[in-house]
């Protein structure tokens, strides 16, 4: 059975379409990523799947239940870690977990063992009795991940799980997420605007922009669309002779040349560099510098949208936010 099935899901906010007819399925046990800039509609999608927002049109099933018709069944089947902390900071970490466990109907006996278990998983046993307002950002995120797991959810939603965390904490969170998915078999949907996060964690990635999916595949296949690695060489000598020679090689997919700079697209670039240098030598050209670049999901995003996600972040992407008074946060 598919963990999630979405068909033509759409959500509008007073005339503005935040999510525009997206369709996809997520298999049980999969780690699925929604990648895109702020305002792309990732959080709105999660909120609809988590029954917090009603879809304007289209349908979605989570763990076999329609999100509009069987809300409580959906709610029982999912765990959610929101983008902004959703903790009561005047309670301790353990009290937050206990609140959750009781809301989900765990018995006193179950609560005791389960709380200890999830606290151990995120290594917060020692801080369990400290008020959450004293927690660091990373600890808050960890206690929320622990909380999302208490009721044995079939599907776990993680909305920007490492947003605003330092590199070291991010690594740890990534490890927890992997562990949960691989060892415990929890289906995970995460949203992110970090390329390396989607690349490192996800089995499949949907690239989202302006409320639509522009691409959906495994990270490696998405990158293959670009045709492989780019080897750039700085050369001195008879460039024309070298170019002529390179054009006879079938494994070079694309050649660009400019003022003594060559830019060559190929697969497995690192294995081809020695050959390229030999070719240059034979043509009587000396190579002064070589640079190999593996394509990233950033390049994939650029390929499909003509923009980089980083540009969008730098420009703070006012287009969606300003159109939605009162809905600016966490979209």
């Amino acid at each position: 059975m598919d963990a999630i099935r979405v068909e033509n899901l759409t959500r509008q906010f007073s005339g503005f379409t935040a999510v525009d007819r997206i369709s996809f399925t997520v298999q049980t046990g999969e780690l699925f990523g929604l990648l895109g800039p702020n305002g792309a509609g990732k959080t709105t999608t999660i909120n609809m799947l988590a029954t917090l927002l009603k879809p304007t049109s289209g349908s979605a099933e989570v763990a076999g239940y329609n999100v509009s018709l069987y809300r409580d069944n959906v709610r029982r089947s999912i765990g959610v870690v929101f983008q902004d902390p959703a903790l009561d900071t005047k309670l301790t970490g353990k009290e937050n977990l206990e609140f959750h466990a009781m809301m989900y109907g765990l018995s006193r006996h179950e609560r005791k063992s389960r709380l200890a278990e999830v606290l151990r998983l995120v290594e917060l046993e020692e801080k369990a009795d400290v008020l959450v307002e004293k927690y660091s950002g990373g600890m808050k995120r960890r206690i929320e991940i622990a909380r999302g797991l208490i009721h044995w959810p079939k599907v776990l939603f993680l909305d920007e799980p490492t947003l605003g965390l330092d590199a070291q904490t991010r690594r740890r969170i990534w490890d927890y997420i992997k562990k949960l998915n691989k060892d415990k078999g929890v289906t995970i949907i995460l949203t992110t605007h970090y390329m390396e996060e989607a690349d490192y964690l996800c089995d499949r990635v949907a690239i989202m922009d302006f409320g639509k999916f522009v691409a959906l595949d495994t990270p490696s296949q998405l990158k293959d669309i670009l045709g492989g690695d780019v080897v750039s060489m700085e050369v001195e000598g008879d460039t024309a002779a070298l170019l002529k020679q390179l054009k006879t090689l079938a494994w070079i997919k694309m050649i660009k040349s400019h003022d003594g700079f060559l830019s060559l697209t190929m697969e497995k670039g690192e294995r081809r560099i020695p050959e390229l240098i030999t070719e240059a030598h034979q043509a009587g050209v000396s190579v002064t510098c070589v640079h190999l670049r593996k394509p990233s999901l950033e390049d994939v995003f650029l390929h499909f949208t003509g923009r980089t996600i980083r540009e969008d972040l730098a420009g703070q992407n006012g287009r969606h936010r300003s159109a939605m008074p009162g809905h600016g946060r966490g979209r």
Partner: protein
Amino acid sequence: MIVNTTAVYVLWLREMKRFSRAKSRVIGALAMPLFFLVFLGLGFNRMAVPGMTGDRTYIRFLVPGIIGMGLLFSSTFGGLSVLWDREFGFLKEIMVAPVNRFSIVVGRVAGGTTTGLIQGVMILGISFILGFKISGPASLFLAILMMILIATTFLGLGLIFASLLKDMQGFSIIMNFVIFPLFFLSGALYPLDNFPLWLKYLSFLDPLTFGVDGLRGILLGASSFAVWLDFILMVFFSGVMLFLGAYFFEKSESI
């Protein structure tokens, strides 16, 4: 709709924990009523109150009014605290749980009523220190019942506003254009007999008018309306407010 008792209990428990930890909140909630009681009570010491005889009539007249005031403020804020939960994100954790909305409303009202009642009883306790006397345990029991009705009425009102507003921006508007008018219209500080007729009729739309009048009838034996009538009207008001509060809360989108 079935009430999920565990959910009600855990929401109530959360409110109790928060209340017991926020010492400043308890002190703040008591300070203003205490200042009103002491300064107005002393300042208007010699003012005659129609229908009341004996010594220090004004401060005695004032005590039920101040209890009503404390409940009005703390309960409306209690209902509005949904906005704080939305602001700090915790509302999402509540709303994504497999618990029906009605149980969430009941849990909040249970918590808010308890904290309101604690404050009301504390104000009454302070007024005992200032020399206020009641006739016996029966009137204390009836007074507590009336306090519960006042608390639930204004918790419902707070919930209505919390569901209609999306953030804390409208808070001061509610404070100035809802809570204060309700307070002044209720006759908590002065007898309504001096009001012009139109204003008097307007005050009949204010639930606190009957809440305070009921408390006066119970605690002082002097009231404008019969105590049973105050009770009936307050049961009506609290029922309507809770229903509307639950209705709007259910309808509003959680984020």
